[in-house]
């Protein structure tokens, strides 16, 4: 199918983008890898697309004073290729290879993925596991939102009209910390049946994708002292919705399989 008619504009500055994005019927366009399919299928009919890819300040990866900052327009492919990410954010380096296929990773962006907040998407779960901060900005200035609070519901995030995701920030991994990302999908690159972002630092966090409307932080399992208790606790933490192919019970079973694998990886010393 073909997209309905819309106008297109490509602002070069954030100020200009805020003004355009606030207009009724406006929609922000980043990599287009989720938005354009929805336009082609006529699931969405905006009047104006505001292409933010010309705004240089939204690009790039930096690591300063122990904080990793990834600009919203950084593509999946850039994250995949980044030596800094491999070194300081191995969780994301592992997760990114599960996102779609090379041609899609070349255009899809971190900001688009977190603004969309698909319940099966990898980044939101990783960002909750890493206790990241989402930097958002609008005409009235910048706001810092904890990833824990940013993902509010199914495809629902804490973004006000006219606001953009600017970046995500989180602590670089420390020497004694460990991260692992695991995912089960029907086919490489498909959205996850279920995925697990696990991080063991001062606190341990097991955060699932594909297990609910938002990333699900399995609090009880994360606090468990041993794997068996953790697996039992998972039954209280998760109530995964069935999808086309898998029942809720299957997903819970698969979630335990991932927990077992992650547990073993996190507890094996370097």
């Amino acid at each position, binding site marked *: 199918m073909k*997209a309905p*008619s819309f106008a297109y504009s490509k602002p070069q500055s954030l100020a200009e983008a805020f003004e355009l994005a606030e207009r009724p019927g406006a929609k922000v366009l980043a990599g287009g*890898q989720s938005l*354009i399919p929805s336009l082609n299928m006529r699931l969405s009919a905006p009047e104006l697309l505001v292409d933010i890819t010309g705004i240089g300040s939204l690009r790039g990866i930096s690591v300063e004073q122990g904080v990793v900052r990834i600009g919203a327009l950084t593509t999946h492919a850039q994250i995949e290729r980044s030596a800094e990410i491999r070194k300081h954010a191995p969780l994301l380096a592992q997760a990114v290879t599960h996102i779609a296929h*090379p*041609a*899609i990773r070349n255009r899809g962006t971190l900001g688009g993925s977190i603004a969309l907040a698909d319940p099966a998407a990898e980044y939101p779960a990783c960002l909750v596991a890493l206790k990241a901060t989402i930097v958002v900005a609008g005409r009235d200035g910048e706001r810092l939102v904890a990833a824990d609070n940013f993902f509010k519901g199914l495809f629902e995030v804490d973004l006000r009209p006219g606001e953009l995701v600017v970046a995500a920030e989180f602590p670089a991994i420390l020497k004694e910390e460990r991260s692992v990302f695991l995912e089960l999908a029907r086919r*490489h690159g498909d959205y996850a049946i279920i995925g697990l972002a696990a991080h063991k630092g001062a606190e341990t966090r097991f955060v699932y994708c594909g297990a609910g409307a938002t990333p699900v932080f399995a609090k009880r399992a994360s606090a468990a002292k041993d794997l068996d208790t953790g697996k039992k606790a998972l039954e209280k933490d998760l109530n995964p919705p069935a999808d086309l192919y898998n029942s809720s019970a299957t997903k819970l079973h698969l979630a335990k399989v991932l927990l077992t694998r992650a547990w073993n990886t996190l507890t094996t010393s370097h």
Partner: protein
Amino acid sequence: MEHANDITLTVNGTRVSRRVPARQHLVDFLRDELGLTGSHIGCEHGVCGACTVRVNGEIVRGCLMLAVQADGCTVDTIEGLSDAKELEALQKAFHERNALQCGFCTPGMLMAALDLTKKNTKVTREEIRAHISGNYCRCTGYQAIVDAIEEVVNGQG
């Protein structure tokens, strides 16, 4: 009302300027406006890979990029890369190993495969499969495609 924008881009080495509807995606532009029908259209939502083209040296979904977004870009299609002989080895291997039947997926498959040869490292069959995971073939069962790509990427013998 149909909104339109002026764009100038380089397609297969030739500079072209056109006024395009804002909603037209790149592969429709290439096919309908420039007559480059080698890039195919299957699903139009990013799943099948038939529309794969190269923009500024990187493979992308032609159906998930607007033509207006290609303003100022360099676009290469199967036609240009065939003429430039960049695809010669892959095309020969696909032919010899029966890696195509109806041929609908082939242009996109070759674009994805060429991307892999650019990495200049040996790859496993698993890596080849992961790399072409976004390209559907409804005929061959993939085995022969993986054989052909493996032969070219890893060299014979």
